[in-house]
């Protein structure tokens, strides 16, 4: 009977995690480029009861040990692309990522967002991580154009024509869902996702770049609310099991008056 207590406790723990993920999703419902988190459950290992080897046709004796978290991943379904008309806003219409250099020198991948030109004149994310390969726009650029295929054109003050200053390279992954979120719209590849596959925007399923737009969060309020209700009720039923197991334990203790 103690087992029932522990099995139900696993139910409470996993539902708790589920509610935490939902809370994070709901909190980021208006965060551009945010990808919703998803917790998926699995039943934990089963153990056989009894020590005798099972004979064919003998009653099967096994007992589960509750529920666990199979994976906590980000769902990379596309968010709606919203037009902002800001020249430094960049959205990716497709599965690809833009590589950036983080402070510690490790590569990370971004889904776009609002870009800036950092103090060295390099194109960088809003957090100041320079794009890789570096694209030098210059501090005196008046007009910046990012084309769908990744070419970046800048017009410097005094010039008539814009000239190409670089090209944004794209990357994608065998299993995008396996990427690890670093926050701030940045992701790191993992063993599960595989290494980056590089390519040009608009080719090989990389997606094309959309200047003057940002990708909205892909959180769907209704789904989250339904998930929240289901998680709450599942939590509740595990609590009831714990109460029942506790009651039965109390009764056992009261066998001897």
């Amino acid at each position, binding site marked *: 009977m103690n087992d*029932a207590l522990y099995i139900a406790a696993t139910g409470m723990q996993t539902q708790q995690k589920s509610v935490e993920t939902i809370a994070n999703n709901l909190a980021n419902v208006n965060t551009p480029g945010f990808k919703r988190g998803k917790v*998926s*459950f699995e039943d934990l290992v089963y153990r056989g009861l009894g020590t005798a080897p099972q004979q064919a046709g003998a009653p099967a004796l*096994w007992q589960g040990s509750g529920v666990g978290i199979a994976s906590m991943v980000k769902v990379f379904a596309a968010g709606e692309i919203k037009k902002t008309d800001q020249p430094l806003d960049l959205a990716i219409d497709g599965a690809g990522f833009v590589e950036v250099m983080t402070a510690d020198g490790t590569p990370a991948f971004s889904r776009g967002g609002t870009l800036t030109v950092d103090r060295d004149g390099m194109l960088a994310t809003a957090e100041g991580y320079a794009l890789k390969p570096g694209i030098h726009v210059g501090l005196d650029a008046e007009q910046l154009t990012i084309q769908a295929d990744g070419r970046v054109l800048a017009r410097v003050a005094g010039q008539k024509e814009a000239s190409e200053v670089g090209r944004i390279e794209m990357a994608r992954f065998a299993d995008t869902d396996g990427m690890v979120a670093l926050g701030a719209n940045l992701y790191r590849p993992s063993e599960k996702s595989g290494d980056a*596959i590089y390519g040009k925007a608009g080719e090989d399923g990389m997606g094309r770049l959309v200047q003057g737009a940002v990708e909205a969060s892909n959180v769907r309020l209704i789904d989250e609310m339904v998930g929240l209700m*289901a998680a709450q009720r599942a939590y509740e039923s*595990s609590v009831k099991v714990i109460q029942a197991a506790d009651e039965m334990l109390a009764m056992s203790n009261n066998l001897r008056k």
Partner: protein
Amino acid sequence: MRCVRDGREMDLMVVAADAMRQDAARLQGIAQNLSNALTPGYKKQVASTQPFSAQFDAASAAQQFQRASAPLQQMQLDPTAGTLRVTGSGSDVAIDGEGFFELAHPSGPVYSRRGDFHVDSGGRLVGAQALPVLGAGGEIRLTGEPFGISGNGDVTQGGAVVGKLRVVRLARAELLEPVGGGVYALGGATLEDAAVVPRVRIGYQENSNVDTAREMVGMTETVRHFESLQKLMQGYDEVLEKSIRKLGEF
């Protein structure tokens, strides 16, 4: 008729204690089902207690008494399909109708109704527990390109069919043995020769088939049954106490 167990006379206390242990095991099953009420592809377990007469008959037929260390309960699965939930993800596949996906576990093939597939870093289509999905011609190998699955189980990539999902039919699926992680070993079930023509729904996930209301009823029943056994034992204890006192008066 005298029943002897453990070399002792079968006593009301022993019968009641056995029944109480069975109730405890039943509650564990309910706990397992309820904690997996939201686990996709989960098949609920049902415990059926063998009536004492059946145990007794079997034992006397064998001319020996078996003392089970655990309550004699037969654990079975309820293989009925769960309801479907829309996920909208192109790699979520639910089997429409009967059958199971076959996955390659290191210790042999395992079966699952869980269809949240993805491609692992080695380019294989994998399902529950990241085990490779066995298609019509073994593992399904994909390149990093985006892939699609169609309603008849064809796995396509770049417009070409690169594999086909296989859905197998199992006889006596209720005797599958759960391994955990949404996969089941064959156990007492048998593989039928004829594979099902795959009919899958894309963008759906099969919900757990646990019916929480039913589990709650089962739980209430179990607790009350346990309670009545407790009362029985307490009552018997009182009877014993009284008789011992009366005998002492002589």
